[in-house]
């Protein structure tokens, strides 16, 4: 079985005299931010009204101690820490003897990201990249009832069925790995019970979210090194633009998937012989090129990069029959259909491609990776439920490195968090932490659903609930026909 290098394939799969199976483990380690993360709230202080030494100063009493370093910040002419660390308990506002405190939403926080990549998403991603922990909080859900795209579906749960009977301690028995390699429809055995067909190589990644080089951003060598090293350690893959490849990436090339075309791929493979998976752009005559490639390199895992547009669903069965291992479908950065005036969202597009393959009876021959707009751990689970084998993430990798999605780089301006100069080792750890947190969240959701294998989750819409269906089933008999078609 071919496994990317970080996967403990080189080590025995069993230890303790063969009794204990090795478990996949993400090496999480705190990687503090280089800059103060932009906080949501800014505390306003009308100091001219301060009573002076009233001995009840709320700054000294702050439960979170956010004003402790205040004097030091002032001395350093630095931004005060309380711009970033306020936990929103309102006690200073409500307890100050003279009432000199108020708060506003930090204007810098409002400027993070855009309509899709919202400040909250960026903030949570920073937290996960820093700590590697799942975001846990008190109080109930605080968002809209439902929304567009993935926000119009819920995952199901089971009251008593568990993938393991060990509760939280059995979570290590939940497998999140997926295959990106093609497979035989059936096995054939000889009279002596030996295998009578060649089996293609098995290429497995441990988590249904792989890495992809972002389409924009400060893509310095340090940034890409961080991504390549993180992919290597995690045992996953990084789809990379070959123009950015250099000898420095050679140690990690087993986890790299260069995005090539039929003209240049052979040259590249000569340059990087340890590459085990490549992606070729979908173009005329690609089927015959795949045939040639199979002849030369039967062990090579081949992905075809296809824009996620109106033709994608029809194209997928043809590619599946041509013997590719994986089809990588690219939505835009907001998870929308490409080349459309009324673009559909990833959720609907995944369903269309997946179901068309099912209809053509070739779904099991090929694997589907979707990229673009995957912003949260929940999107991984929901994309897989819709029918993807996995997703490729790009922008979250930049956010893990403290990117604020200010898009200054698109206009050739400087990066406020100096992404170009990061230490690749630090960046690697931030990405590992993010994936560790995402994987744990996927396990939470799978555990609740009673699903033990990520591969079993693919297309399993029965383990989800969709806004339209719930409305029709539960509100339809009461309120009749829905007159507003959009979700909110």
């Amino acid at each position, binding site marked *: 079985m071919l496994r990317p290098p970080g996967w403990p394939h080189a080590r025995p799969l069993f230890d303790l005299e063969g009794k204990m199976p090795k478990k996949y483990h993400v090496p999480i380690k705190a990687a503090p931010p280089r800059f103060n993360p932009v906080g949501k709230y800014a505390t306003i202080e009308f100091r001219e009204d301060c009573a002076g030494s009233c001995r009840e100063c709320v700054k000294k009493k702050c439960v979170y101690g956010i004003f402790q370093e205040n004097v030091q910040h002032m001395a350093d002419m630095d931004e005060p820490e309380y711009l970033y660390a306020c936990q929103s308990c309102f006690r200073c506002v409500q307890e100050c003897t003279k009432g000199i405190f108020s708060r506003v939403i930090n204007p810098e926080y409002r400027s993070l990201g855009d309509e899709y990549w919202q400040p909250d998403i960026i903030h949570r991603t920073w937290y996960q990249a820093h700590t590697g922990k*799942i975001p846990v*909080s008190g109080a109930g859900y605080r968002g809209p009832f439902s929304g567009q795209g993935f926000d119009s579906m819920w995952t199901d749960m089971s009251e008593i069925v568990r993938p393991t009977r060990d509760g939280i301690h059995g979570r290590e028995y939940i497998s999140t790995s997926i295959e990106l390699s093609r497979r035989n429809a059936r096995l054939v055995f000889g009279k002596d019970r030996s295998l009578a067909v060649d089996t293609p190589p098995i290429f497995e990644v441990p988590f249904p979210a792989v890495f992809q080089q972002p389409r924009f951003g400060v893509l310095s060598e340090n940034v890409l090194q961080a991504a390549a090293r993180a992919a290597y350690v995690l045992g996953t893959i990084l789809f990379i633009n070959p123009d950015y490849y250099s000898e420095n990436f050679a140690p990690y090339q087993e986890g790299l998937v260069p995005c090539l075309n039929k003209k240049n791929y052979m040259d590249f493979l000569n340059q990087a012989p340890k590459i085990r998976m490549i992606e070729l752009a979908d173009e005329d005559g690609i089927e015959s090129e795949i045939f040639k490639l199979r002849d030369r390199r039967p062990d090579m895992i081949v992905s075809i990069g296809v824009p996620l547009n109106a033709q994608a669903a029809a194209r997928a069965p043809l590619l599946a029959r041509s013997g590719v291992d994986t089809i990588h479908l690219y939505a835009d950065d907001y998870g929308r259909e490409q080349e459309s005036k009324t673009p559909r969202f990833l959720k609907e597009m995944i369903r269309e491609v997946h179901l068309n393959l099912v209809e053509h009876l070739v779904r099991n021959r090929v694997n589907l990776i979707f990229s673009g707009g995957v912003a949260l751990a929940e999107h991984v689970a929901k994309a897989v439920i819709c029918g993807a084998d996995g997703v490729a993430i790009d922008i979250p990798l930049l956010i893990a490195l403290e990117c604020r999605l200010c898009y200054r780089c698109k206009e050739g301006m400087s990066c406020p968090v100096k992404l170009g100069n990061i230490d690749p080792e630090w960046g690697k750890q931030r990405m590992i932490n993010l994936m560790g947190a995402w994987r744990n969240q996927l396990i*939470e959701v799978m555990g609740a659903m009673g699903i033990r294998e990520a591969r079993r989750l693919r297309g399993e819409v029965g383990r989800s609930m969709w806004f339209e269906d719930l409305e029709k089933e539960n509100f339809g008999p009461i309120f009749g026909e829905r007159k507003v078609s959009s979700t909110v």
Partner: protein
Amino acid sequence: MKTKREKRQLPEVKKTPSRFRHPIGKYTIKRNARCTSCGLCAEICPYGVHPRYDNFVKPLRPQEHKCIGFQCRSNDFFCVERCPEQALTMRLNPILDTLGDYRWPAEMLIGHWEMAETGSLPVVDVEYNLGNSGGGFDKIRFVPPDPADYLELPDEEIDTSVLLNKRGDGRPERTIDIPCYGGGMSFGSTALDVIVGRARAAQRLNSLTSTGEGGYPDEFLPYAEHVITQVATGLFGVRERTILNAPVVEFKYAQGAKPGLGGHLLGDKVTPKVAAMRETVVGNALFSPFPFHSVYSVEDHKKHVDWVKEINPRVLVSVKVSTPTDVDMVAVGSYYAGAHIVHIDGSYGGTGAAPDIAKKNIAMPIEYAIPKVHRFLSEEGVRDKICLIASGGIRNAMDVAKAIALGADGVVIGTADMVALECVRCGNCESGRGCARGIASTDEELGYLTTEAWNEQRIVNMYSAWRKQWCQILRQYGMRSIRELTGRTDLLVHLDYLDEEARARYQPAPQVKMII
């Protein structure tokens, strides 16, 4: 059902001001240096915005949260206008931008603080009935009543009680006087004074509260008739004694905020007292297993129910489940296993700690689950034999009424109780020393910021205000009892199911983009 002319003794409402020096209001009133402390504003304001004491002549900071705002302009006691020195200014409080969220907007929080303070419906023009979530309860409205149906009845003569045991199995036919009881909050997640305050309030309201899964502190014993013992997967504090104490035992199979996951109590909150109560190690996080390891089927579940019934012959059994797609089947299974109450907890419910991914994404909102379960129980012919209780995202009196009209008998409330105690929903209950406002904390300092008596009265006040709303709804529809409202979906409309013209007749759903 109680008779028509029977007058109920309602619990006493007492003014219970905020614990904080500066309660947050919708408006700000600023007094500038021109003020000569003439006292006119204090004299004319009927809402008490301008406090003044006989023996103290200097101006005091206005009680801004009592100000009724710009609607006061038409009054002859509008202080801003009448001030001879023009020393007063009024504005919308800018801090509202930073308070609340889609489900509990700032005005809903402020409205509930006022109810908890006064025991009456807010006089300030805050929207406390609708959230900003853009769906579910926030888009459901009651149809306009026929004026001919109106009943001239005082609140004392309207029945808001709910019968918990409909099985007719010889066990007590227990009723609660309001269609709500308190959701489980454990010792560990929540301050002792808070949970005991809730129990005291439950006693005054003739309702119930639940221990949660953190054990049964002795402080509950004086109110034991109003305290549900929760049997959750961690089994903390589940003893023969605590089963015998309880009028109702609640099996918690799942919680709406984290369906499919066990209880979470992070390490910092496992203080020596909490650890002693739960017989665990100080500082070690407690993740309860999921699910019950002894339950694989409805038959196994029945074994649990029988076991509890055998120990306590007068106990009623509640089964708390989350809202998966087959929640209707689960509800019927619970009935056949012998439960008196099936309690469905929707996905937007409250919690002391839960992964954000679980809160948002797992299981269905309660608005869908109530009619689904109600319908299925009716089709199975057992709806009249079981009490259907809903929870999870039911925030205010109107949500309660809507939930009942959708098919529930009553509801369970958690977050609103906390809001009555001045929770701001900052969401930091789970970590460090816990709640900075002294509600969800067992920290040596933070866990003792409130008193049982204050907590009790604030909660009693809030439900007293809610009861006024329920009575008004029932009067309008010519109903004498809230039990008549159950399943009356004909009294509801959903804005998204109306054409534009019909929709215009109803209050639109708030749709404000928020930063959360």
